[in-house]
């Protein structure tokens, strides 16, 4: 198996996630797309770990999973707060700081 196969899969998932972050208006959907991006990075880490025969790639993939859990917890709390204050989770409407 080529290393490239995994890197291309990760790149494709990363770009799908980028599109989701940029195109979606719903805050929860934006968070889901961020999860997709973090997963694509994990594929890269594990693939390079297998490529070099080093276990550090897996360790960092586990770290990324833990950070993603923390991120989605705080992110959902922020989305809930925006919903409570604005009655909407449209990220385009959260523009109070706009000049």
């Amino acid at each position, binding site marked *: *198996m*080529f*290393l*490239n*196969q*995994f*890197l*291309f*899969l990760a*790149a494709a*998932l*990363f*770009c*799908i*996630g*980028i*599109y*989701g*972050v*940029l*195109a*979606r*208006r*719903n*805050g*929860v*959907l934006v968070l*889901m*797309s961020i*999860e*997709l991006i973090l*997963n694509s990075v*994990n594929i890269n880490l*594990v*693939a390079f*770990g*297998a*490529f070099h025969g080093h276990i*550090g790639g*897996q*360790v960092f*993939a*586990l*770290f990324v*999973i833990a950070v*993603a*859990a*923390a*991120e*989605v*917890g*705080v992110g*959902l*709390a922020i*989305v*809930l*707060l925006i*919903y409570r204050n604005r009655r909407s*989770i449209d990220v*385009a409407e959260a523009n109070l700081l706009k000049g």
Partner: protein
Amino acid sequence: MIGLLAQEAALTDTGEWIANGFFYAMAAVAILGGLKMVTTANVVHAALYLLVVLSAVAGTYVILGAEFVAVTQVLIYLGAIMVLLLFGVMLTRAKLGGEEDLDHEQRWIGALVAAGMLAVMSYSIWEAFDTQKLPGDRTPQLTQQVSDEIFSTYIVPFEALSVLLLAALIGAVVVARRD
């Protein structure tokens, strides 16, 4: 002896072929699920498509011999994070029957950016690693090896991560609390 060696080579070839087929099946499921996730007009369907993508990614971890990461992916992502996201959908009262205004009007700019990034990344990946192969013997790495590495070499990031999780927990409670 030579016959035995040839047989073994054929067997590993077959194994390689099966692994490739499994990988391409998983990759197709992941990419199609991802595309459906970012284009569907229903928030709950998007969450379920994300579930499909995460399962397929766990399958690619198994191919790479990272079984502990695959199991952790299933436990944390499919078990915990998905429930959290579905709770988010529920608490923000997203309409369940589908919405027309789920995307920005200028979503083609996002598509343009994503396509451009995909082109640049594909080109650079191809330039850097065009036909480098993964090592042939991808024996699954034991959980013991992973934990030995975490608790010896990477003990400082591990402890920092536990503090980060605690801080995120307290922060989430403080932010979302009704007072």
